[in-house]
């Protein structure tokens, strides 16, 4: 197998700082040497390589933008994006693991948590000693989370939580869950230890996507948390939605990694595979596909890079994130489908990564705002008219 060569058609490496490139290359090297050799078996077995969690923590990919005083690395958002890209070059499940830990658990604690909450949880989450999950989606409420049925009620100095959450990455392997519930009709966030009485997290088994990632339900039956468990800094749907904006930023970058992986593997294959005395890549139909994919990946790279710079300047918007997530994930999915076809029969085996990426991306295009919902978010921004209600 040829060494992985990342497409850089427009010489975008020039646009990154030295430490951004160092971060990217460190994660790229780790994924190639430590993660990729085992991912096929984990995907087939339906397991996440938990033995690699300490190495991920040592690498520093859990909440890298968290301030150093709370155990993070204080990195900028572009570096975080590049981390997501390299993790998802490995597998969307690996990137999902880190997206949840960083964007959906550490980010809200850092942003909306009390000083005590930050000191208690962030260092443990950064070191991987503690795994977190994020409970927003419910069986009957996905794109419309405001309708959630999960509730919290105050009893003395405790909150009592009741409800069900669905499609929760890392649910059954997490020690804490950020649970969003309605308190007197307002959406609030709670840090819920998963070993409390009344809390259970049955896994969603039998899925054919994100198999190397744990997905669970969260069931809360009269779960009692102390009043210090509420996130004091945010009130209303803005809380969970702002977390999702963070995570979607990472997904827009991550999808590029999956596309790169598919493109590189397929290019190597087609240059080596001889049909009628010449490489498959020498024929016009494959060349058209490579030209289209290279162009699409390059456009996606530029979108992500500009979004990252805007975010670091503190002036990115949710509709911009919607555009980048929507475009890059659909681009990656279409790239994976095209590459699957271009690998011929090999494309349906797990010996090649393309089929695994293709299956994974069906989840990525659905979660964190479906493709269609992002379409409507961009439409609302452009026209000024909201069409999704």
């Amino acid at each position, binding site marked *: 197998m040829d060494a*992985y*060569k990342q497409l850089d058609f427009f010489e975008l490496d020039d646009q990154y700082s030295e*430490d951004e490139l*160092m971060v990217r290359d*460190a994660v790229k090297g780790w994924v190639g040497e430590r993660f990729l050799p085992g991912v096929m078996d984990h995907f087939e077995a339906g397991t996440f390589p938990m033995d690699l969690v300490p190495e991920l923590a040592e*690498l*520093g990919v859990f909440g890298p933008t968290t301030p150093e005083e709370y155990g993070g*690395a204080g*990195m900028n958002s572009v570096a975080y994006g590049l981390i997501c890209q390299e993790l998802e070059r490995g597998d969307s499940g690996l990137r999902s693991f880190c997206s949840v830990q960083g964007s959906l658990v550490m980010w809200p604690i850092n942003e909306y948590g009390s000083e005590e909450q930050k000191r208690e949880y962030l260092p443990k989450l950064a070191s991987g000693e503690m795994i977190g999950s994020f409970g927003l989606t419910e069986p009957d409420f996905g794109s419309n989370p405001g309708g959630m049925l999960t509730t919290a009620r105050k009893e003395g100095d405790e909150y009592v939580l009741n409800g069900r959450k669905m499609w929760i990455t890392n649910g059954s392997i997490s020690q804490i869950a950020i649970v969003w519930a309605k308190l007197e009709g307002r959406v609030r966030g709670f840090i819920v230890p998963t070993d409390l009485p009344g809390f259970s997290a049955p896994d969603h088994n039998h899925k054919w996507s994100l198999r190397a990632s744990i997905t669970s339900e969260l069931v809360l039956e009269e779960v009692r948390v102390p009043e210090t468990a509420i996130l004091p800094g945010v009130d209303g749907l803005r809380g969970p939605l702002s977390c999702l904006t963070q995570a979607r930023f990472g997904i827009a970058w991550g999808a590029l990694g999956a596309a790169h992986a598919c493109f590189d593997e397929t290019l190597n294959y087609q240059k080596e595979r001889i049909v009628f005395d010449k490489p498959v890549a020498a024929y016009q139909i494959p060349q058209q596909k490579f030209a289209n994919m290279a162009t699409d990946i390059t456009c996606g790279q530029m979108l992500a890079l500009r979004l990252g710079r805007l975010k670091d300047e503190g002036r990115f918007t949710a509709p911009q994130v919607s555009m980048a997530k929507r475009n890059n994930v659909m681009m990656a999915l279409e790239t994976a489908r095209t590459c699957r076809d271009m690998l011929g029969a090999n494309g349906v085996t797990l010996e090649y990564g393309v089929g695994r990426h293709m299956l994974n991306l069906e989840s990525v295009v659905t979660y964190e705002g479906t493709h269609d919902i992002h379409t409507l978010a961009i439409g609302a921004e452009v026209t000024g008219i909201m069409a999704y209600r």
Partner: protein
Amino acid sequence: MNIVACVKRVPSTEAVAKPTADGKGLDAADFQYMISFYDEIAVEQAVQTKEAVGAGEVTVLTLGPANGTKEIRECLAKGGDKAVVLTDDNWQSRDARSTAKALVAQLSTMDADLVFMGRVATDRDNAAVGPMVATYLGWPCVSDVIGLEVGDGKGTAKVETEAGVETVEFSLPAVVTCQKGLNEPRYAGLKGIMAAKKKPLEEVAPEAVENQSEVVEVALPPARKEGRIVGEGAAAVPALIEALQNEAKVL
């Protein structure tokens, strides 16, 4: 303990070799660089030795271009405390001796107890600079080391030889060249990368030293000849034996 790890930037493993128009070198326009594989082991051993001794400083020393600091910063992210870059635009055309002379001149000012190097740089494959540096300094040179303990003014190394593994004792200061298996180099973690930004990186212009050997031509290895099918099944055996005896001359 004052420890120096000498490293070299080499073209990355995916680089494609293409001779320049004058045929005297390789076209470096599309090269990406990395630290030579064995030099990464040298950096790791320097950091591990400092950690084992419990005190001291690791300096990463290289001879290279002024703007090629990314790879050197990576060494700092992996635990080096500071870096010294001997800047030379013609770093790639220096012969082993002129490289060794430049390193020796710098090392003589550094009061080092231990100098680690890779056993060989993965581009030129000379395995010469380490022993030369030790010889010019008049220090012990222990090469191809796969195990090392350092204590009170001396070290004990396990050295891979064709006959087996030798255990060697030597006095400090010394030059140790590192073989695969000595350690497992760490990844540059994000915190290390952030910390590396604040570590000192000094650029020094080395004195010019004439090359004693010059590359006059670079040629790619000849393309492999196309194979030939001599026949199929058992009936082809005589023809195969004939070809192996008279054409390939291997029987």
